[in-house]
């Protein structure tokens, strides 16, 4: 028996496709998420909008919270480690967390290097804004990708930019001649072998979810329409007036993302969504998407 193989790690993400992964900060929220049909939960100490509001250094969650969430639900539990923080990642792995997010939502521990994710038995998801970043993360061993978007803003514009960019670059790559790929690798800052594989298969070798700014059922459906394999919802759900109803609506809109009448029904009387932030109002140094190298 072989554990921690690429197939097992990437396959785990394949099973999440078409689903919604929800940020939760305690067992009660985790149960609401599971009941609403979430495919997994992300156990956090604070959701991104609160991290943004609190300022200071954001770290791995208190293991007690992660443990509490793991005991509360039977769906997979994910948790975030700081970029490059080998020990936070190893601690979460040792606790038996099902998936780690090497996340720019937390304050990076290393401003030069990411984790060598291929060395871990636990699979990783990482954020990306373009194909270069996506391919570097895959090269390091990420088994799942997500758009970075701009977390905690309730503004979908950055996630849209990122998924369109990645998909446009994949399409371009697929139509390139073989003798053009090395230069493309140089230009993108991407590992050559990963690009060759993407060209051969016609798509990314791992699933790519939407994240960072999904605030409404229509936002979730939009990201699916643009080619996301599934959706992460962070601050949106438990910052809304009726989290259970809101969570269900996001799940259904993700499943039936082209059923517009249904999405209209789902979107009725959901209460006030989280108040959005316009990206230009966030100082460049405060934009989480700039973190990662």
């Amino acid at each position: 028996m072989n554990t921690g193989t690429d197939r097992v790690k990437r396959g785990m993400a394949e099973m999440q496709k078409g689903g919604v992964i929800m940020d939760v900060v305690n067992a009660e929220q985790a149960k609401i998420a599971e009941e609403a049909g979430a495919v997994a939960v992300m156990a956090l100490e604070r959701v991104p909008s609160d991290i943004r509001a609190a300022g200071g250094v954001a770290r791995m969650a208190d293991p007690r919270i992660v443990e509490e969430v793991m005991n509360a639900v039977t769906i997979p539990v994910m948790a975030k480690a700081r970029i490059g923080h080998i020990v936070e990642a190893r601690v979460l792995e040792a606790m038996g967390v099902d998936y780690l997010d090497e996340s720019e939502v937390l304050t990076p521990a290393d401003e030069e290097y990411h984790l060598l994710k291929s060395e871990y038995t636990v699979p990783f998801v990482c954020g990306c804004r373009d194909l270069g970043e996506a391919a570097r993360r895959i090269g390091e061993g990420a088994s799942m990708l997500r758009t970075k978007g701009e977390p905690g803003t309730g503004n979908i514009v950055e996630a849209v930019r990122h998924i369109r960019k990645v998909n446009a670059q994949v399409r371009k790559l697929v139509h390139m001649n073989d003798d053009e790929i090395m230069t493309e690798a140089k230009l993108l800052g991407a590992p050559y072998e990963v690009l060759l594989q993407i060209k051969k298969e016609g798509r990314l070798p791992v699933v790519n979810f939407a994240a960072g700014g999904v605030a409404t059922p229509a936002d979730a459906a939009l990201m699916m329409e643009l080619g996301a394999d599934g959706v992460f919802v962070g601050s949106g759900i438990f910052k809304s007036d009726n989290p259970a109803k809101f969570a269900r609506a996001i799940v259904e809109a993700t499943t039936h993302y082209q059923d517009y009448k249904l999405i209209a029904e789902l979107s009725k009387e959901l209460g006030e969504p989280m108040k959005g932030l316009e990206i230009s109002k966030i100082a460049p140094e405060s934009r989480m998407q700039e973190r990662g190298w």
Partner: protein
Amino acid sequence: MTKIGVLGLQGAVREHVRSIVENGAEAVVVKWPEQLDDLDGLILPGGESTTMRRLIDRYGFMEPLRQFGESGRPMFGTCAGLILLASDIVGYDEPHLGLMNITVERNSFGRQKESFEAELSIKGVADDYNAVFIRAPHIVSAGEGTEVLAECDGRIVAARDRHYLGCSFHPELTDDHRIARYFIDMAEQAKASLANS
């Protein structure tokens, strides 16, 4: 042409579609109950069983799926799909569809870090089958008339009960499409015998 549906509410739908097409059958992604009508067989894919169950309830799939099975048309559940098919689930009072005469236990090999690949011998399919287990359930016991097709480490991981086929691993994640072939053969035989009855 034999028409095989894949329940498309959540999970590894695309991969099953690929293995159906590779075997020369027609694949249909089923998102609404009406789509079940003209299918010869149905695959319940891997994914999250609790999520699929919520969506099955919300879109009124429960009865149509049961009727599909009771009509004699074959169903194949992989991982989460196996849990949906089972007549008994350890630790739960009620099954989901409850069509296949087996008792299953969820996440019985452990959490994700214990997920694994292993070589299996599957009766009637292959002696050298590389199976991918992800937070997998296993079949604790096979009921009367249920044939055990494969075991891993002493645990039942594939079985067949009449026209119901189930496995706790993910055949859709590899390029080996022999189990899909086996299921399509089941669907073709059922189609022929249902047409004659």
